[in-house]
Every structure is written in C-alpha cells, then in structure tokens.
C-alpha cells in the first residue's frame, strides 16, 4: 500500500537531474579520458581527476536543483500540515477497525433479533 504523499516525494526524486547540456559535457569529459585504456585509479592521473570533478559537479548541481524543487516550488513537500494529517489519519484508521467491529456486532445482533421475532 503506497501513500499518495510518498508517491509525490518519489516523483520529485525522479525529476532531479542535471541539465542535458551539462550531462553531455560531463559524460564527454568522463568518457573521453579512458577510451580503450584500462581504468587507472592513480589519483594524480589527469583523466581520473577530470572524471571525479565531473561526478562531483553532477552531485552538487543535482543537490541544488533538488533544493530549489523541494523548498520553493513544491509546497506539498514542505507542508507540515499535510504530513501530520496523513499520520493522524493512519493512527485513526488503526483504531477504527476495532470500533467498526463493536458497532457491526451490535447491529448484527439487532438484525438477528428482528429475524427471530415472529411478526
């Protein structure tokens, strides 16, 4: 059972990505550095450093985009009321199940009495 609210958050996460131009440039940078060569993890190797910088930039830009998305554009994510409502609702449903049985048991007893009685 997935809540709408969680779904929203998941959708927001899916939206987070760097711009196409940035992606292209970064991937060009990363892939151009080790064409047909074994990966060398020497930290001083220029291609590794360039790649690392590229990856870190993706994270940083991704983070900034996420930041803006979550705080300014999407009030749902930031809405304390929504969250507390969702939680309260869940706690209530939890107990309603028990109360439902109490009520229905009384109702069924009354119905059976009705069927039992001759007109």
């Amino acid at each position, binding site marked *: *059972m*997935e*809540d709408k*609210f*969680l779904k929203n*958050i998941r959708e927001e996460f899916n939206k987070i990505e760097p711009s196409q131009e940035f992606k292209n440039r970064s991937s060009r940078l990363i892939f151009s550095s080790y064409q047909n060569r074994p990966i060398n993890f020497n930290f001083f190797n220029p291609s590794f450093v360039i790649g690392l910088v590229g990856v870190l930039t993706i994270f*940083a830009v991704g*983070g*900034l985009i*996420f*930041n803006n998305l*979550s*705080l300014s554009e999407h009030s749902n994510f*930031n809405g*304390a009321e929504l*969250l*507390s409502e*969702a*939680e*309260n609702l*869940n*706690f209530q*449903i*939890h*107990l309603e*199940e*028990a109360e*439902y*049985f109490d009520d*229905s*048991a009384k109702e*069924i*007893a009354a*119905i*059976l*009495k*009705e*069927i*039992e*009685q*001759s*007109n």
Partner: protein
Amino acid sequence: MKKFLHISLIVSIFAIIPFGFVYAQPEIIKDSHREVIDSVDKIYEVRESNLTQQEKLAKEMELKKTALDKVVEFSILETENFKTNLINLEVGEDEFEAELLALRDTLLIKLDDYLEHFDFVRNGIKASDNLEIVQSIAGSFNDWREFTYNPEIKKVIEFILIFQNKSFIKLADLRFGKIASDLRTVISPKLQSSIRQQFLNPAAISIRGAREFNNRAMALLADYISEEKAFGESEIDTPGLEEEAAFDSGFVPEEEIAVKEDEKQVEELTIRDLVISSLQKLKDAYSKFLSLRDFVGGQSGEQ
C-alpha cells in the same frame, strides 16, 4: 552545500512514515454489510405492503432466509479478514512473545472452527422449509455470536491492535535513529545539543512511553493464556466465589478504600485504552519530529 545537507536531514525526517501497516476494512466486507442491510429492508417493505396476511407470511419466510444467510456470509468474510490479519502479524521476537505466539495459534484454530460452524449454519438455513425453523436458527446463531464468537473476536482484535502498534513503535525507533545519526553529521555541535534538548530527548521519552503502554497491553493479552489453560483444565464455572469473597471483606478503613480505588483505576484500563495511550505517545514523538523538521528548515532558510 550546507543548505543541501540540511535538506538531507529534512528528507530523513520524512523518509519513514508508518504507512502500509494499516489495514482498512476491505471493500468486500463493506459490500456484504450493505447486502445484509438491504435484505432486512426488504422484510420491512413486505410487512408494510398491501399483501394479504398469508402472502406476507410466505414472503417473509423467504426474505428472512435470505437475510439470515447474508448475516452468516458477512460473518464468514469478517472472520476470514481477521484470520488473514492475525496471520500477517510479526509475532515471536522473544520468549514472552513465544507465549503469545501460542495464543495466536489457539485463536487461529478457533477462527477455523467458527468458519466450519458458519458452513453448518448455512446448510441448516438452506434446508429449512418453514418460518419457525428459520427464526429459531436466527435465535441460536445470535446467542452463539454473543457468547462464543464476539468475545473471542474481541481478543483477536486486541491481538492485532497490539502487534500493529508494536510495528509503529519500531518505525518510530527507526526514524529516531536516522534523525539522530543525520544530526551528528550535518548540524553544528552547538546547535546539536539544543536540538537534542528541544526535540530528540522529548521524542525519545514519548517513544519509551509508547513502548511501556504497549507492553502493559501485551501483559493483559498474556492473561488470556492462563484463562485458556484454566478453561482447559476445568470446564466448571464458579462465578459465585468472587462475590462471596467480596462479602467477606466487611469493614475497610477509608484510606484503604482510596488506595483500592486507585488500584482499581489502574486495573480497569483495557487493552484498547492502553493501545490508545501508546498511540498518543507516538503521536507526541512524531509532532516533535515535525517541529524539528520545521526548525531545521528555518535554519537552512536563514543561511
């Protein structure tokens, strides 16, 4: 970058909300309930119609048969639903729960017996060919529900409530752990201690309180085990004994009465009361988490 880290703390506060553990009344049971009500309405309609007395009697027998069958069908669906929910609970983490596991098995066996009984009653309804028989089946089914079925279903519900609540408490713990660990890595040490005082410590106390209430409810649930055993050993009921003991107590000084009343109040808390109190404590903990989220959000906005 620091702002981004603040956001990650906010996300961790959000990340584990107790969804997915709650079961709503399945649609099929609601439909069945509606059918019961409709079938009873039809009995009233015929009663108030312009048909002759004889025609009314003939119709009434068919309609009562249908209504009674619908009531049994509703009881079957309800019982199956409780059975599924009982089976789905995670029980048996420690020695104490092993005992409760045995109680769950006993309750499950009873539910299976009830499902058999429903079939038996249904066959009786099908075979009945006059109004008196239908009415007498309704009467005995009502008694059976009142004295056998309802009290045991009450235990089943209590069992479900307690263990569902336990899963909520576990989630709150998990949430607390995540927030606390994010706090250590993200927030400055100076701010950390004030956050602990304002939000985390009270939340921890609330979660502990929730666990205590739920444990008390579990202890009451365990009392059913000894009841079952006593019932198994001797089927003779001795309701008079307690009353006699009450008579013997005679004069009691006033202070003692006050103490006894206090004890009584403690004793009188039902399993459901305790679970409600436990849930209230969990709500308190979550409201602290939410205030913390707002607080951290405010802090990151200022930077």
